[in-house]
Every structure is written in C-alpha cells, then in structure tokens.
C-alpha cells in the first residue's frame, strides 16, 4: 500500500535519512521503531508532504506522493496524528472531528450561501459521523466540551478520531503512547486494534518496544537514518544489530558497569 524507495533526506550536511526502503502491506499494523533521533518523525513528515525528500520516491497505492501538497495527500487517503499533540484546542471535540471531514464536504458556494438542502444534509451527516467517530474512541459523551479541557490521553484519542474523519486508507501514528501511563497505553492498544479491525491500515512510529511488539505484525528498525532490520516481532527482537542499537555493545556495557 505504501512503499518507500531508497528515500534520503539531508538537512544541510546532516544526513537524517539514508536510502530508507520499506513497504507497508495493506490491512495490517506496521511499526517503525528506533532510538530517539533515529529519524522516525522525519519519515512521517516526508510521507505527509510536510518535507520533500532529498532523493528517492514515496509511492501510495502505486502513485508518487513526492511534490504533492499536504492537503492533497490527506485527500488521497493518508492521515496522521502528531507526537506533540496538535488538536485544535479552542474548538469543541465535535468541531475538531468535523474539521477533519473538510475535503469530504463538497457543497459549493451557492449551497453554502443559500443554505440549500444539500448543504443542510451534508452538515447533518458530518455531525452524525463525527459523533460516531468519537464513540469509536469513547469520547462521545464529551462531544461538546472544549478540546483544551481534555486530559493528555483523551487528546491523543481525539487526534485519532480527527484523523479517521478524513476517511484515510492509511493511518500514520507518530508515537501514539508518548507520555502516557501504562493504563492509558493498554487502553490505546485496544483502541488501535479496534480501528485496524475496521479495515484501516496502520503505520506507527514508536520507541516503546513492548507496545510495538504487542501490536505490529511487521516491524522495521531505524537507527542513525538507516534501516537496520525488518521482519516479524520475533525476528527483530533477536536481531543482533537491533539489540546493539537499543542496549549498546558489550564493551560499552562493561564500561558502564
């Protein structure tokens, strides 16, 4: 569904990503893991069009995403959440989710200014759908609250509902459990499984190993801008390079001890 072909991204002389290639198959949960600073968020920023790659190509269902504006990529079926939560804090939960449906509300200026039946129907359908999406993440009872009043974990779930409102085929989650306690993590894990079982493909970035191992069927490991391992959870867990990246080499361990 999503394919990165030897993608590189340099910031000046800094090579943040070098020759990154992997393919996300449709239907599953794919995890990209790696230590802090490995370049994980840059990967998501490249896919969603916030940054152009220095070289390489990114294909979504066979079509290149490189050079497309972010809103076109979203309209094409790719949605994301952010590591540092970016909900619209002064809006209600319902409004947040309806903003996500922007590109799907295709009434024209005439319908809007004359409040034609098509406009009313589209707005009503959007509100109903938004409540349904909020119920998926169990926030429907707070639909009319201001987003800023939500707890951290709830704001993450709101972001999830908002991303789903864009009707994506592929959902990118940028460190979905960052800053959460373990109860919130377990809850979100269930939420993500639920969403996947509704037919969405999920691509997540994470460095919480346990979380990723428990959720993902496919995992790629990024370290210093390069993919160092790919495969199923067990294969990755036992890969010597991965162990080295996460735990350090033996001689360093001895020095530390």
């Amino acid at each position, binding site marked *: 569904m999503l394919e990165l072909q030897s993608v590189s991204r340099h910031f000046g002389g800094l090579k943040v990503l070098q020759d990154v290639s992997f393919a996300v198959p449709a239907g599953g949960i794919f995890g990209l893991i790696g230590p802090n600073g490995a370049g994980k968020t840059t990967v998501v920023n490249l896919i*969603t069009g*916030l940054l152009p790659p220095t070289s390489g190509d990114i294909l979504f269902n066979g079509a290149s995403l490189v050079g497309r*504006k*972010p*809103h076109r990529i*979203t*309209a094409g079926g790719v*949605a*994301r959440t*952010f590591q540092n939560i*970016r*909900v*619209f*804090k*002064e*809006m209600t939960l319902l*409004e947040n989710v*309806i*903003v*996500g449906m*922007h*590109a*799907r*509300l295709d*009434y024209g200026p005439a319908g*809007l*200014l004359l*409040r034609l039946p098509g*406009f009313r129907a589209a*707005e009503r359908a959007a509100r109903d759908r938004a409540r349904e999406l909020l119920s998926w993440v169990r926030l429907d009872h707070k639909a009319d609250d201001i987003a800023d009043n939500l707890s951290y974990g709830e704001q993450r779930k709101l972001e999830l509902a*908002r991303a789903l*409102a*864009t009707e994506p085929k592929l959902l990118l989650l940028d460190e979905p459990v960052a800053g959460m306690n373990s109860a919130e993590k377990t809850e979100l894990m269930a939420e993500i499984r639920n969403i996947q079982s509704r037919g969405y493909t999920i691509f997540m970035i994470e460095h919480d190993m346990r979380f990723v191992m428990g959720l993902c069927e496919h995992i790629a490991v990024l370290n210093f801008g390069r993919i160092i391992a790919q495969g199923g959870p067990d294969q990755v867990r036992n890969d010597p390079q991965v162990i080295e990246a996460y735990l350090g080499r033996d001689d360093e361990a001895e020095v530390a001890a």
Partner: protein
Amino acid sequence: MEAFESFWAVYSNLVLTLGTNSLLALSIYLTLSCGMLAMANAAFMGIGAYSAALLTMNAGVSFPLALAGGMAAPAVVALLIGGPTLRLSGVYLAMATLAFGEVVRIFIINTEAWTGGALGVNGIPPLTAWWHVALGLVLACLVLALLRRSKVGRAFEAIKLDETAAGLMGIDVNAYKMLAFVLGAMLAGLAGALNAHLTFFIGPNEYGFDRGVEILTMTILGGINGLMGPISGAVILTLLPELLRGLADFRNVFNGLILVLIVLFLPRGLWDPARLRGWLGRRS
C-alpha cells in the same frame, strides 16, 4: 420628528461613519480570523474609494455599478499581491502589507492625471444614502455569518489555531488564506467607496498607516470571537472622540492606550461569548 431631523442634520455623517467603520473592522476581522495579521486594509479602502469616485465622476456610471467597481478593484489587487505575501507569517506579513500600503499611497500621489495627486479628488457627488450603508453592513454580516457556520469558517479557525494541522486535515491552507484576504479587500473597498461618496473629498493621506492602525485597533478592541466584536469595537472607537471632544487631539494616544490595556487585561477583546457565559454561570 423635528428633533430627529435636527439630530440627523448634525450627526448623519457620524452615524454613517459608524457603518463604514464597522465594515472596515469586519474586513480586517476576516484575515485575523484566519490567523493572518495583514495590514493592507487601509490601502484596499483607498483603492475602493478612488476607483468608485473616478467611476462616478469620469465614467459617469450609476452608483451601484461604482460600488461594485470599488469592491472589484481591491479584490483584483489582493489576488495579485496575495500570492507572494500570504506565504509570510506573523510580523513579516504585517510588514509586507504595510509596505504595500505605502506603495499605494505613493502611487496615488504620482498619478496626478487620474487621481489629482496629493491634492486628492474634489467634488465627489454625495450619493451615499443611509440605507446604502445599512444594506451593505447587513449583507456583509449575513454573508460572514453564513460562512462562519460552514466548512469555510471551520477552515479559517483551524488555520488560525494550527496551520500545519489544518493542512493535514485536507484544508487547502493557501487557498483559504487567499479567500479571506480577497473578501477582506472587497469589504474594505466597499467601505471606501461608500465613504468617498459621503465626504465630497478624498486624498491619499487618508488611507495611510494611521488609518490602518485605527482599523486594527477597532477589531482588537472588540475581539474576533464573533461578528459583534469588530462592530462593537468600531462603534466605540468612532464615538469616543465625539464623546471626549476635549481629548480629540490626543485621539491616537488614546487609541494606543486602549490597545495596550485591552491586550493586557482582555486579550480576547470586549466581545467574548465564552467569558460572558463564564460570568453568567458564576452568578447563577
């Protein structure tokens, strides 16, 4: 009735200025509600005023057509300058649009053959009747209210709160910024055209930096949490110098002081439904 007639004879100009200033405040509200601090509204007002005045005086067109011209001309200019300037943000956008205002002023001064240069345009027919202003204001409010409660209003708000996130929600950020900018230019142009046919005379210095700051002050004072904000700000700042005639010379000092106080104590402006609800809620 007689009392009203004598009141109207003295104050009609002031009452109609309330209307045109409200239009100006709404024009900058549009760009502010989309998260842009664009300071070109005084210049757009000037372009509208000159276009409409020259249309009625030189081309002899009917008043409604002149008003339409006074809205179309700044809209076209906004489309042209919006491309390069709207990609700027914050203070840089304010600086670029202020510079544009200065360009317009100097352009008017140096095209004497059309605009009368620094001497301005004299003898504009006083065609603006009270109901022109009232109708213009009502229509503007109606359109803005309809936009607010639709995907356009939500897109503006989303862009104001977080531009990057808005883009990733499928909103064409550049297109909506341009829409806000062009609609704002049309409203400012309408205000300029109405004002020109009210005051008999227009000159290039009426549409400079001072006017731009005055328009911004009205809207910041009122707040941008609804259409009532800019309008109440415009009404207050138009009436204040009349109420405090002794202070009239210090008007700009006063405006500045008000702006500072508002930013310090009521950063969301006078008209803030959320705060009003909070106050009412606490009392009950």
